[in-house]
């Protein structure tokens, strides 16, 4: 998978043997990061492990609480985990706490897809890019002690059993933990959509403060309560249990640190351990007093949330430069820390984050390549009252992104019309480094979008990025049921084949019998057939979404997540309850469209060659697709060279707009059982690779098995007019038909030659300003590197867009002779393409 970097949407860091440490800078810098580097040492040598403790403790608790209300069952389970899970503090650590295992690890959630674990655990051991180590003995514990309890009791069992038969078939076929290929379902892989909590609450009130609130409420709901709120007492009791358990968990660390300090010979480390002990004695129970305490409290909270339930892309860090700033500012003013110390603490937090890896309980491994992690960490943006929110900490975090040796955390910057010029300059300096970070979110699009969905202005301005390119309002949003990805090229194939589609080599009648493609009199009839097939998939999508809403409410109750939420606390309801009063029950784009570019390109080629120019017949096309263009290269080339979306060509871009409008229309027609109207997003992660792998050839000239286009972008290499034309096309493709479109993922390849000097950075800044003006949603850069160029030598057809940039000269990289290409590759290694 040499080219996953090009293909995967949010660039995942590859830890392991390929771990790249940035070259040595100045001596001082080397010394400064000594602790961080020591902490990172075993990242390189050790694949991550599976820790089964969380699953074991949870299961033990659940066995004993069958007669309790759901909130209390979950509270008790979390209490048991927090009180009993093994704890440890590594050498050199400043921020402490883990999920039961030293080093990098993932944990198991048998309550969701327990049925998958029996087989899946052994698969995890396979040496590949997703490898996790698990011992024979642990596998036995899982199989003998954990899974038998969950058999028939998991969320996924309930989900499958409740699904209507036809929906179940369309989604899963005969693979309950994979996909038939039309809809790739994320149900129960995680317990929740992308999520971020209100860390500020923990920092300001502490869990004890929150517990006090719950206690007061509990008294108020006593026998004297005229409204009889007795049903709310379960939630409040659950909150109290969990708050106490959080404090106890930290205190276990306080004691461990103190014990270790007692026997520590190194006086420096001894002092550090004593400090850790004092801090863990104080937070997260009480309000944080220092920057150090704030980060430790943030990590304990995040850690507990990670043990409570898996969320898509892992729990986010939210607007970290906002909620940590008061502590940073005070400590800096009082001389308690300096920039380097603050940086070290932040980076210790990044390491804790990097040590925890999500295990995706699905057979469809290629849908989640690498150890994907989207703990979105957001800086910049606006304050609730609409001023620029950038502060010193925003700059410091950017600096860490530039200097920290591994690709953590998943950093994004909120850009808006008043983003300060010097901050944007620093952002561009980091982008230039070529890691693809930070990614950019556009306030000028996202805030109006949230307003259109009913948010208050101050809430909308305080949104945070969450997951890959999705967004959240952390004290208003409550919608957690996961969505699924729709294979749009499969819908097109059904439209062209009277409802039939070939998946994994098998031809199946799955869609609606629209009509034979040769009977289409014009392009509109084809579009109509496509919209019927898509609508059919959307209907089944709503079925599965409704069932999942029911299952989530019946099976899940995330008490820690809920107690940190204003609305849940006010209403004394678990966040998994649908329709809580005062909440915004809106998903973050659950209908995830895969292969938008592939379909637009296909339709454009069909319109041009078959209906307009009549240089190709529908039969010839279908025949060529059937044989995967074997002996039909002439036709394939005609398709490949038809007008292409992504080049600011109205012919193609108007079709893109029409498709976008169609994609937004169907979901508006339906509602889930809880009354939710679902949003559309274009965020592939790596599903465009996974779904592409099981599909046959497509009318854009793509051969069977090749990846689909990614996000809202054209297929790889099809946008040959440079990034500006791509951006213009993509802006044009946004039909704005309804306000149900969000998270439009957009990756742009950029040649390092463009950003290698002062002017280059200024131009990149202008590019971003214009992107902001154009009201795109998201942007992430892929700086062209030598690996990408080598791949272009091997697969020129995928890289037709690489332009060699030299003054007064024009040519594409793939057109050069191998010798010249090699020369450019060697130059690119020194950043001068």
């Amino acid at each position, binding site marked *: 998978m040499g080219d996953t970097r090009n293909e995967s949407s949010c660039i995942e860091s590859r830890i392991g043997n390929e771990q790249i440490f940035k070259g040595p800078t100045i001596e001082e810098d080397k010394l400064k990061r000594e602790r961080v580097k020591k902490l990172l040492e075993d990242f390189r040598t050790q694949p991550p492990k599976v820790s089964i403790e969380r699953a074991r403790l949870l299961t033990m608790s659940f066995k004993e609480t069958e007669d309790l209300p759901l909130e209390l069952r979950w509270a008790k389970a979390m209490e048991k985990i927090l009180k009993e899970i093994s704890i440890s503090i590594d050498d050199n650590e400043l921020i402490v706490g883990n999920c039961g295992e030293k080093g990098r690890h993932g944990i198991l959630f048998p309550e969701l897809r327990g049925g998958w674990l029996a087989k899946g655990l052994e698969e995890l051991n396979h040496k590949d890019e997703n490898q996790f180590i698990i011992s024979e003995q642990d596998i036995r514990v899982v199989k003998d002690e954990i899974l038998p309890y969950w058999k028939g009791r998991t969320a996924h069992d309930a989900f499958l059993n409740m699904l209507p038969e036809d929906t179940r078939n369309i989604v899963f076929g005969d693979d309950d933990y994979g996909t038939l290929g039309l809809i790739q379902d994320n149900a129960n892989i995680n317990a929740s959509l992308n999520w971020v909590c209100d860390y500020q609450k923990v920092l300001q009130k502490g869990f004890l403060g929150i517990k006090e609130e719950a206690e007061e409420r509990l008294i108020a709901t006593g026998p004297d309560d005229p409204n009889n709120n007795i049903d709310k007492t379960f939630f409040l009791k659950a909150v109290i249990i969990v708050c106490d358990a959080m404090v106890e968990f930290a205190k276990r660390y306080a004691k461990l640190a103190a014990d270790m300090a007692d026997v520590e010979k190194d006086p420096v480390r001894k002092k550090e351990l004593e400090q850790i002990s004092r801090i863990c004695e104080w937070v997260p129970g009480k309000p944080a007093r220092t920057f150090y305490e704030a980060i430790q409290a943030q990590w304990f909270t995040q850690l507990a949330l990670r043990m409570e339930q898996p969320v898509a892309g892992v729990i986010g860090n939210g607007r970290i430069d906002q909620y940590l700033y008061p502590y940073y500012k005070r400590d800096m003013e009082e001389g308690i820390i300096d920039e380097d110390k603050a940086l070290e603490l932040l980076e210790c937090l990044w390491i804790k984050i990097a040590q925890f890896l999500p295990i995706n309980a699905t057979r469809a491994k290629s849908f989640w390549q690498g150890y994907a992690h989207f703990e979105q960490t957001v800086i910049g943006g606006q304050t609730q009252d609409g001023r620029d929110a950038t502060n010193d900490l925003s700059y410091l975090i950017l600096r860490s992104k530039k200097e920290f040796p591994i690709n953590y955390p998943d950093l994004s910057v909120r850009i808006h019309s008043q983003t300060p010029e010097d901050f944007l300059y620093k952002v561009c300096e980091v982008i230039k480094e070529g890691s693809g970070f930070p990614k950019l979110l556009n306030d000028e699009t996202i805030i109006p979008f949230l307003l259109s969905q009913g948010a208050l202005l101050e809430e909308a301005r305080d949104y945070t990025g969450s997951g890959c390119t999705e967004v959240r309002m952390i004290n208003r949003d409550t919608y957690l049921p996961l969505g699924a990805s729709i294979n749009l090229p499969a819908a097109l194939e059904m439209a062209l084949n009277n409802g039939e589609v070939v998946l994994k080599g098998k031809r199946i009648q799955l869609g609606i019998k629209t009509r034979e493609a040769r009977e289409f009199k014009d392009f509109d009839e084809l579009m109509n057939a496509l919209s019927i097939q898509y609508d059919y998939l959307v209907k089944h999508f709503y079925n599965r979404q409704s069932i999942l809403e029911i299952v989530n409410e019946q099976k899940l109750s995330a008490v820690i997540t809920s107690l940190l939420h204003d609305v849940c606390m006010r209403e004394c309801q678990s966040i998994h309850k649908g329709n809580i009063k005062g909440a915004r029950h809106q998903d973050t784009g659950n209908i995830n469209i895969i292969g938008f570019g592939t379909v637009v390109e296909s339709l454009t080629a069909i319109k041009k060659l078959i209906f307009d120019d009549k240089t190709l017949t529908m039969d010839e096309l279908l025949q060529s697709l059937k044989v995967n263009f074997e*002996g039909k*290269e*002439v*036709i394939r*080339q*005609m398709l*490949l*060279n038809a007008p292409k979306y992504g080049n*600011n060509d109205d012919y193609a871009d108007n079709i893109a707009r029409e498709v976008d409008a169609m994609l937004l229309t169907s979901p508006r027609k339906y509602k889930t059982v809880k009354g939710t109207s679902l949003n559309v997003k274009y965020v592939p992660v790596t599903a465009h690779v996974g779904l592409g792998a099981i599909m046959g050839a497509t009318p854009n000239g793509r051969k069977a098995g090749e990846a689909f286009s990614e996000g809202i972008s054209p297929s790889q290499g099809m946008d040959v*007019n*440079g*990034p*500006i*034309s791509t951006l*213009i096309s993509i802006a044009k493709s946004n039909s704005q038909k309804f306000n149900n479109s969000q998270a439009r993922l957009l990756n742009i390849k950029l040649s390092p030659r*463009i950003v290698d000097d002062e*002017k*280059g950075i*200024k*131009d990149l800044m*202008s*590019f971003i*300003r*214009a992107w902001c*003006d*154009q009201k795109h949603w998201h942007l992430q850069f892929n700086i062209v590197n030598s690996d990408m160029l080598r791949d272009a030598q091997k697969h020129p057809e995928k890289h037709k867009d690489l*332009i*060699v*940039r*030299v*003054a*007064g*000269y*024009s*040519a594409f990289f793939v*057109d*050069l*002779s191998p010798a*010249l290409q090699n020369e450019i590759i060697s130059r690119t290694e020194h950043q001068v393409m």
Partner: protein
Amino acid sequence: MGGKVNLGCVFNIQRFCVHDGPGIRDVIFLKGCTMKCKWCCNPESQSADKEIAFKQDVCLGSVQCGRCINACPSNAIIESKNDKSAIEINRELCVNCSKCATICPARAITVMGKLMSVNEVINAVKDNSIFYRRSGGGLTVSGGEPALQAEFVECLLRTCKEMGLDTAIETCGYAKWEDLRRSCEYANLIFYDIKCLDPKKHKDFTGVDNELIIGNLIKLSHQLRDTSVIVRTPIIPDFNDNQEDVRSILKFISKLNNIKQYELLKYHSLGEVKYKQLGRKYELSNFKPVNEKKFKELQKISKEL
């Protein structure tokens, strides 16, 4: 202009250029050049007429495809004698009618050069104005030698200025003064190439005298004294990669009053592939890169301006 449509022969509109003037720009490459520099990296710019370019490596060949063989009215396209599945273009017989390019499914055969009106060019770039506005960029006319299409260039750049777009031009200076003046009239910035002051060497390597070029630059500095000029010298090994040549140019231009900057461009052989596609021979085929250290030294001199 009146009722007559003013057409220019364009061989490429390159987007997102950042080395040809301020900000982010589109460069309009015009066809036709007055010089024939041995190192020319855009050989498709030399002839003023449309030309056929052929990319052998993407051609499907006569067995799989061969559509161009039938389409060619001059019988200029034939199966290769060496490789029966490949095709060959006989440039002697080719009349550049472009029928083969229209029918080629793989775009192995393309036409270099397209007649475009000023409006067509403007339409092709105006969507980018949002990027121009943010970056202070605009449109740069390059070539070939734009002054060969002086009327078109004048009209194009005037229209741009009327629209508030920034304008620049790249010229080799070898053109009739009146044409050059008209072409530069509406440019905010002029890139002016001086290859070498030694007349004999200049003639050897570019095929023309440098007297006109030098004279035109002096005239520019008087008659368009408010327009900034950046003088550029491509540094070619064994031609002008020495201190004397660079110093003499520096000395000459420092006497002129509107030269804003002196810039050296490093010679590269990236154009080599295009010679083959056009069925021509690349004369500098045993390419030697410019010595990096030497180039840096020369660059230092150029910055003395």
